[in-house]
C-alpha cells in the first residue's frame, strides 16, 4: 500500500529552506502562501533541481530571478559576482542540495534518497510538474529579493 502524500509533506522542505537561508546565507526568508503548481505558470532565470527517490519519488527545485540569485549567492559565498558566473551556478546547486538533504531527515517514512543537483540557466524558463504528482510552490521573500521553492512528490 503506497503511503499517501499530503500537503504537510511539503513542510520539511519549507523549514529546511528557512533554516538553510538563515544559517548558511545569513538572511531570513519569509514564506508566502503555498500554491498548487498547476495553477501557477511561473518563469525564472535560474533554478537548482534535485531528484528524490525512495518510497516517494519527486523533485525539489529552488528558482530565482537572475539579480536575486546573484545577490543571494554572493552573500552565501562572500562573493562579488556581477553576473551568472559558474560559481553562482554551483552555489545554487549547493543550496538546493542542502535543502533537500535536510528535508529528507524529516521524511523518514519515505526513506528518501537524493540525486545530484542540476542547475538550469535561461531567461524565463518554466518547470513543468511531473505527471500525476502532488506539486506545490511556496514563494519566499527576502531582503535580497524573492524566490520560489517547488516540491513534487508521488508515492512509489
Amino acid at each position, binding site marked *: 500500500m503506497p503511503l499517501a502524500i499530503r500537503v504537510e509533506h511539503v513542510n520539511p522542505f519549507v523549514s529546511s529552506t528557512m533554516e538553510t537561508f538563515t544559517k548558511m546565507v545569513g538572511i531570513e526568508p519569509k514564506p508566502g502562501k503555498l500554491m498548487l503548481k498547476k495553477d501557477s505558470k511561473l*518563469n525564472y532565470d535560474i*533554478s*537548482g*533541481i*534535485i*531528484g*528524490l*527517490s*525512495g518510497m516517494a*519519488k*519527486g*523533485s525539489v*527545485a529552488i528558482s530565482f530571478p537572475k539579480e536575486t540569485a546573484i545577490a543571494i549567492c554572493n552573500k552565501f559565498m562572500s562573493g562579488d559576482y556581477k553576473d551568472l558566473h*559558474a560559481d553562482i*551556478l*554551483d552555489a545554487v*546547486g*549547493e543550496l538546493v*542540495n542542502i535543502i533537500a538533504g535536510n528535508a529528507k531527515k524529516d521524511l523518514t517514512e519515505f526513506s528518501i*534518497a*537524493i*540525486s*545530484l*543537483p*542540476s*542547475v*538550469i*540557466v*535561461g*531567461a*524565463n*524558463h*518554466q*518547470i*513543468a510538474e*511531473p*505527471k500525476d*504528482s502532488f506539486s506545490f510552490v511556496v514563494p519566499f521573500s527576502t531582503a535580497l529579493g524573492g524566490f520560489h521553492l517547488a516540491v*513534487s512528490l*508521488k508515492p512509489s
Partner: protein
Amino acid sequence: MASPVKVEHINPFVTATAETFKSMLRATVTPGKLMLIRGNKLQSDISGIIGLSGGAQGSIILSFPRITALKAVSEFIGEKVLAIDETVKDAIGELANIVAGAAKKDLTQYKISISLPTVIIGDGHEVQGGKDVIPMAVPFESPFGPFYLIVSFKSEA
C-alpha cells in the same frame, strides 16, 4: 576538485538512449564525441531531467531544440504536435524516464533508483551540474534533428 564523469558511467546511458529511440521512435540515433557542458554553451528549448540515487548519485538530462522535440514526440505518440504543450512535456519526461530505467540494468552494482522526471521549458536554456562532479554531454544526431544527453554520475566506491 571535482573530476569529470567516468566514461564507463556514461556509456550505459548512451546505449539506453540509442535503444529507447530505436524501440519507441523507430529511429537510429548516432552519438558524437563526449564534451564538457561548461564553456560550451549547449542551449536547448526543452529538457527532461531524471535524478539518480542509491549507491551512486547523479542525474541524466535529455535536452532538445524545439524542432527536434516536436518531431520526436510526434513519432513517439503517433500524432503530429506543432507546439510545446502538456503532451510534449509529458512525452519528453517519459523519454528521459525510459532512458534512465533502461540504463539501470547496466549499472546494477549501484542499486540505482530514479526520481520523477522534471521537464524544463525555456528558449535557449542551459543545464549545468553542481560542484561534486563535472557533467559530460553527448551530442546525438537523429532523424528528428540534434539533441544532447547530459550525464552527472558519482559513485560512493
